C-alpha cells in the first residue's frame, strides 16, 4: 500500500523545500515520492508498516494510524513552510532586498496553497470538525486578492475621517493630500485648516449605489474603440455623476463631521475648501493638478461640490493618463478634503529647492495678497524671494511685483477677483520675520517627509501661518544629470563608522553630534543635531522632530524607539556597539542610513541626493506588501484555552496556521492516547519529573511494551527509541529545566535570572500536552514552548547518509524584540554546534545530517538541553547584551553535563 509507505517516510520534514521565489507552487501533500536511495534505507519502517497495518481486518472501518500520521506529518511540513514563507516576506521589508509585484503575487499564491492544504489535511484528521476554516480561508484570500488587484480593501474604513484621526497608514483611504496634512498637524504640530476627509469608501459607495461602474465601463469602452472622443466620453460620465445622488449613509457621516467642524472652529456659518485628494495623485503618478478644487463653498452646496470634485476624476486628461499608464478606472479611489476656509491676508508657494538650479542651496518663496489659487496657477504675478536653506536663512534675491489683483472669498460663497487697494499694490507681501518663519517651517516639513517639497501656505488676518498643502517635489527625473558622481564626492570625506549595527530607519542627514547621557540632557537637545546615545530609549520621542539622525550603541530595529524614529522618518542606526565612544558632542557628521556609513563633516551633496530619491519604503510595492502582510502575519489567536480559539476566531493566515497545528496535535493525542484508536500503535504518557506532559505514540520498536498490556504510564527506562531517549536525556539533565541543584557558579548565574521569571511561565496555560511519535530510529516531537509548537524531527540510521535532525523553534509569549533576541541566542549556539541555521525574526530552523548514530544521539541530547534552557529565555533576554551572557551560561551548562 503506497499510501501507508509514503506516510511513514519521515522525509517531508527534511526534504529541501523550494525557495520562496515563484517556482515553489507545487502542492506539498502530493509531492512525488522520495528518491530511491532513501526509499531503500527506509525499508525497516516500511516493512513494519506493511506488517502492522496491511493484514489488519479492522482497518476497513478505522483509518489506520499510519495514514493519520501521514496527514499529521503533512501538516507539520506545511506549517514549517508557511511560517518560513511569511518570515521571508517580512524580511523583504527590511530594505536589503530588491523585489517586485511579481514576487508579492507568487508569495501570496504559494501561501494560499499551503494554507489550503493545511486545512484539507486537518479535515482528513478530523472530518467536518473544523469546517468553519474553509469559510475564513476564503474570506482572507478574497481580501488579499482585492489588495493584489489594487482594488482598495476599504470595507472596514469609515466614510469620513477627521484630520485628528488620520495617520500615514490611511493614505490609500484618504489620499496623499489629506494624509500629509493630518500628519503635519498631528505629528509636527503645525497649523493646517481644520477639516476632514471624505474617504475612498464614500466614493466607492457613491459609484456602487448609483450603479455607475457598468455605465462608466461602457462609455470608456466606446472611447477605447474610438466611437467617442475623450472629451465626449468625459462629458457623458461627468453628466452621470452630476445626476447621481450621494448615498444617505455618506451624507449622514459628512453631516456629523460638519457639526464637529462647527464646534471646533466656533463659526456659525462655515465656508469650505473642497479639494481632491486621490490615491496616488502626486508623487510618482503625477496626477497633480488634474483634479478639481473648489474654494469658499457654502455648507449647503457641499454635496454638489463633492460631486464636481469626484467628477474631475473623469476629466479627459485624467482618463487619458490612466489609459496611457494602464490603470483601470476602478483602481482609482477619489477621496476629498473638506476644510474650513482660511481667511487669508496673503498666500503663496514654497519650493524647498529651486527647480531650475537645485545645486544652489536656496529655497524659493512666492507670495501675493489674498487666496493662493491664482499664485499656484500663475494667473497673477507674485513676489519672489530666494532664501538660503542655511540658518539664519539670508535672503539672496527679491523680486517684488506690482500686485494689481487678488482673489477673495465672497460672503455668500464662491470667490472673486478684486483690485488691490493702491496703497498695498507695491508693498512687499512678506516681512523678514515671516520669510524666516516660512523657511524654517518648510525645511522642517522637508525633513519630516524626507523629500524636497512643494508647499502651499496662507497667512491669515491674525498673522498666523497655515499650511494648506505639501507634496513631494519630484526633481530626480529632470535633474539626474546634475546629481551624478555622488560616489566621487563622498570619497573625499573620512568614514567614521561603517557597517556597524542595524539600520532602523533609512535616510540621510547631517548635523552636529549631541551625545545624550541622561534624560536631562534632552532638554538641551539642539534643533538639527544628531542624537548619539548608549541605549535606544523611547524617551527620545521628545526630541525626535528636532533630530537629523540617531545612532545608538545598543538597540534593535524592532525596538520601541525604532518605531518612533520611523514615525518621524529620522535616519537611525542602532546597535553599533560603540557610537558613544566614536563620536563627541559638537562634531560635524553626515549619517547615511541607507548604506550604513557615518562620514566626518557635512556632505550637502549627499543630503541633497537623499532628498531627491524616492523613499523606497513609501513606494507602491512596499505599501502593497505591508498591506498584504496585514492579512497574513498578525497572530490574534494566542491562547488555545481562550473562547475565541475557534475557526471563526481566525483573522489572519497566521491564525489559521497556528490553529491547524494546535488541533492536529490535539486530534492525534485524542485518537491514539485518549481513545486507544489503533491497538497496534502503543501509546502512553511519559512518567518523569519535569512539569511537562508528554504523550508518546509508538509506531514501531520505540517503547518496550508492558507485560500486562497496560501502557498508560511509560517510565523513561522503557523508551527504546534512539532519538527519543537522547532527547529525554538532554531535557532532564541537571540545570536544563532549572529544577536541579546546581554548582556554585552555575547557581549564581541562574539565580540572577530566575528572579525575573514571571509567573506566567509557571501557569499551566502554556503547559498543554506535548506529543512525540516515535519508532526505534525515529522521533517526531511537538513541544509546546510559546505560541507555536517547536518541532524536532530526527532519524538515525546505520547508513549515516540518511541520518538527520530537523529543529524548528518559533514564537514566544513576549514581544517581538525579545523573541528575536532569543532567536539570535539560538542561532549562535546552534551554529557553534555545527547545525545549519536559518533565522527570520523569531523563527529559527536548524538542520544537521549525515552523522554517525553516536553523533546524532549527542546532538539530540544537546537539543534536549537547549530546549529546556531556552523555553523561558524570551522573557529573560531583557537586552541585547544578555545574549552573550546566556550563550556563555549555556556553554557552561553543556560542559558540566558532558564532563559528568
Amino acid at each position: 500500500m503506497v499510501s501507508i509507505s509514503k506516510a511513514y517516510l519521515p522525509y517531508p520534514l527534511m526534504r529541501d523545500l523550494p525557495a520562496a521565489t515563484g517556482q515553489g507552487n507545487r502542492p506539498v501533500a502530493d509531492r512525488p515520492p522520495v528518491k530511491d536511495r532513501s526509499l531503500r534505507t527506509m525499508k525497516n519502517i516500511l516493512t513494519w508498516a506493511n506488517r502492522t497495518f496491511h493484514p489488519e481486518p479492522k482497518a476497513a472501518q478505522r483509518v489506520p494510524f499510519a495514514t493519520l500520521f501521514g496527514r499529521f506529518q503533512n501538516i507539520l511540513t506545511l506549517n514549517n513552510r508557511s511560517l518560513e514563507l511569511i518570515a521571508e516576506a517580512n524580511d523583504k521589508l527590511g530594505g536589503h532586498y530588491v523585489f517586485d509585484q511579481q514576487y508579492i503575487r507568487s508569495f501570496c499564491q504559494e501561501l494560499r496553497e499551503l494554507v489550503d492544504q493545511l486545512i484539507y489535511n486537518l479535515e482528513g484528521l478530523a472530518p467536518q470538525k473544523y469546517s468553519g476554516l474553509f469559510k475564513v480561508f476564503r474570506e482572507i484570500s478574497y481580501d488579499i486578492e482585492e489588495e493584489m488587484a489594487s482594488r482598495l480593501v476599504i470595507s472596514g474604513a469609515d466614510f469620513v475621517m477627521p484630520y485628528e484621526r488620520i495617520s500615514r497608514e490611511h493614505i490609500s483611504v484618504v489620499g496623499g493630500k489629506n494624509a500629509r496634512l493630518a500628519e503635519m498637524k498631528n505629528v509636527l504640530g503645525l497649523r493646517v485648516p481644520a477639516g476632514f476627509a471624505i474617504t475612498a469608501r464614500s466614493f466607492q459607495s457613491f459609484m456602487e449605489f448609483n450603479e455607475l461602474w457598468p455605465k462608466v465601463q461602457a462609455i470608456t469602452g466606446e472611447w477605447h474603440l474610438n466611437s467617442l472622443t475623450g472629451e465626449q466620453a468625459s462629458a457623458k460620465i461627468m453628466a452621470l455623476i452630476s445626476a447621481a445622488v450621494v448615498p444617505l449613509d455618506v451624507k449622514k457621516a459628512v453631516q456629523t463631521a460638519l457639526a464637529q467642524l462647527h464646534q471646533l472652529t466656533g463659526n456659525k456659518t462655515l465656508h469650505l475648501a473642497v479639494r481632491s485628494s486621490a490615491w496616488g495623485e502626486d508623487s510618482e503618478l503625477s496626477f497633480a493638478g488634474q483634479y478639481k478644487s473648489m474654494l469658499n463653498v457654502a455648507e449647503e452646496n457641499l454635496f454638489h461640490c463633492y460631486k464636481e470634485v469626484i467628477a474631475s476624476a473623469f476629466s479627459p486628461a485624467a482618463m487619458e493618463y490612466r489609459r496611457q499608464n494602464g490603470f483601470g478606472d476602478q483602481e482609482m479611489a477619489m477621496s476629498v478634503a473638506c476644510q474650513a476656509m482660511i481667511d487669508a491676508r496673503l498666500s503663496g508657494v514654497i519650493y524647498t529647492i529651486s527647480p531650475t538650479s537645485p545645486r544652489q542651496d536656496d529655497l524659493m518663496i512666492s507670495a501675493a495678497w489674498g487666496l493662493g489659487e491664482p499664485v499656484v496657477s500663475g494667473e497673477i504675478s507674485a513676489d519672489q524671494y530666494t532664501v538660503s536653506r542655511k540658518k539664519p536663512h539670508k535672503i539672496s534675491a527679491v523680486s517684488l511685483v506690482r500686485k494689481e489683483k487678488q482673489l477673495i472669498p465672497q460672503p455668500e460663497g464662491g470667490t472673486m477677483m478684486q483690485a488691490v487697494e493702491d496703497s498695498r499694490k507695491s508693498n512687499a507681501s512678506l516681512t523678514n520675520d515671516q520669510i524666516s518663519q516660512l523657511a524654517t517651517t518648510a525645511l522642517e516639513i522637508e525633513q519630516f517627509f524626507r523629500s524636497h517639497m512643494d508647499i502651499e501656505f496662507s497667512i491669515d488676518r491674525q498673522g498666523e501661518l497655515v499650511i494648506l498643502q505639501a507634496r513631494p517635489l519630484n526633481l530626480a527625473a529632470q535633474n539626474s544629470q546634475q546629481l551624478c558622481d555622488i560616489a566621487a564626492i563622498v570619497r573625499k570625506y573620512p568614514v567614521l563608522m561603517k557597517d556597524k549595527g542595524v539600520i532602523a530607519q533609512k535616510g540621510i542627514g547631517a548635523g552636529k553630534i549631541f551625545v545624550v547621557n541622561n534624560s536631562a540632557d534632552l532638554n538641551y537637545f539642539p534643533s538639527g543635531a544628531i542624537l548619539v546615545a548608549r541605549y535606544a530609549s523611547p524617551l527620545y520621542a521628545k526630541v525626535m522632530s528636532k533630530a537629523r539622525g540617531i545612532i545608538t550603541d545598543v538597540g534593535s530595529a524592532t525596538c520601541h524607539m525604532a518605531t518612533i524614529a520611523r514615525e518621524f522618518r529620522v535616519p537611525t542606526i542602532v546597535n553599533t556597539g560603540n557610537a558613544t565612544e566614536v563620536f563627541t558632542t559638537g562634531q560635524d557628521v553626515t549619517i547615511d542610513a541607507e548604506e550604513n556609513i557615518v562620514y566626518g563633516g557635512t556632505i550637502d551633496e549627499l543630503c541633497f541626493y537623499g532628498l531627491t530619491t524616492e523613499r523606497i519604503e513609501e513606494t507602491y510595492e512596499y505599501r502593497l506588501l505591508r498591506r498584504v502582510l496585514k492579512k497574513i502575519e498578525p497572530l490574534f489567536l494566542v491562547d488555545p484555552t481562550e473562547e475565541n480559539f475557534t475557526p471563526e476566531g481566525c483573522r489572519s493566515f497566521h491564525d489559521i496556521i497556528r490553529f491547524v497545528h494546535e488541533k492536529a496535535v490535539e486530534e492525534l493525542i485524542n485518537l491514539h492516547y485518549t481513545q486507544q484508536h489503533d491497538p497496534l500503535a502503543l501509546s502512553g504518557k511519559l512518567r518523569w519529573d519535569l512539569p511537562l506532559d508528554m504523550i508518546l505514540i509508538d509506531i514501531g520498536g520505540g517503547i518496550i511494551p508492558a507485560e500486562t498490556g497496560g501502557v498508560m504510564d511509560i517510565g523513561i527506562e522503557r523508551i527504546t527509541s534512539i532519538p527519543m531517549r537522547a532527547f529525554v536525556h538532554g531535557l532532564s539533565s541537571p540545570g536544563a529545566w532549572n529544577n536541579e541543584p546546581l554548582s556554585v557558579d552555575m547557581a549564581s548565574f541562574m539565580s540572577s535570572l530566575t528572579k525575573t521569571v514571571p509567573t506566567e511561565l509557571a501557569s499551566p496555560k502554556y503547559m498543554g500536552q506535548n506529543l512525540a511519535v516515535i519508532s526505534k530510529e525515529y522521533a517526531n516531537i511537538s513541544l509546546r514552548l510559546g505560541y507555536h509548537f517547536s518541532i524536532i524531527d530526527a532519524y538515525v540510521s546505520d547508513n549515516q547518509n540518511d541520518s538527520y535532525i530537523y529543529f524548528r523553534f518559533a514564537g514566544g509569549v513576549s514581544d517581538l524584540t525579545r523573541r528575536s533576541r532569543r532567536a539570535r541566542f539560538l542561532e549562535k549556539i546552534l551554529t557553534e554546534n555545527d547545525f545549519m541555521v536559518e533565522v527570520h525574526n523569531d523563527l529559527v530552523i536548524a538542520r544537521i545530517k549525515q552523522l554517525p548514530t553516536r553523533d546524532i544521539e549527542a546532538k539530540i541530547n544537546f537539543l534536549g538541553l537547549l530546549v529546556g534552557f531556552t523555553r523561558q529565555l524570551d522573557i529573560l533576554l531583557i537586552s541585547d547584551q544578555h545574549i552573550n551572557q546566556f550563550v556563555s551560561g549555556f556553554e557552561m551548562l553543556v560542559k558540566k553535563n558532558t564532563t559528568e
Partner: protein
Amino acid sequence: MTIPQKTSILILDDEPIVSKRLKPSLDKNGYEVEAFVRSIDAMSRIRERDFDIIITDLKMEGINGMEFLTEAKRRSPSTEVIVITGFATMETAKQSFSKGVFDFLAKPFKLGEILEVIRKAETKRREKMAAA
C-alpha cells in the same frame, strides 16, 4: 593621473520598482547608470551606445529579455549581461548561459548580491581587456 572611466550599466525591467531600487544604490557605488522600463526604449538606446554591463529582466511585454540581450550581445560582445528574473527555471538559466549571459539572479535578491555580481563582471571585463 587619469581618472578611471566609470563602468556604465543599463538596467531594464518592466516593473519600475526594480530600477528605482537599484539605480540610487549603483549611483552611490560609483557606476554610471541608465534605467529603462520599456524594452523598446532600451533597445533603441543600445543602438546608440554600448554599455559595459546590462542588467535585464526576461519576461516583458513587447521585446522580451532574451531577444533584447541577444541583440545587445550581437552589437557589443564585450558587454556582460546579468539576468534578473522571478521565473527562474533550469531551462531559462540554460538558455541564458548559451547566449553568453554572465550571471543569473533570481528575484527577489539582496542589493549586496547584485553588487557582488557586478563587481565580478567588471573583473572579468578587465581580464578580457588585459588579455586582448
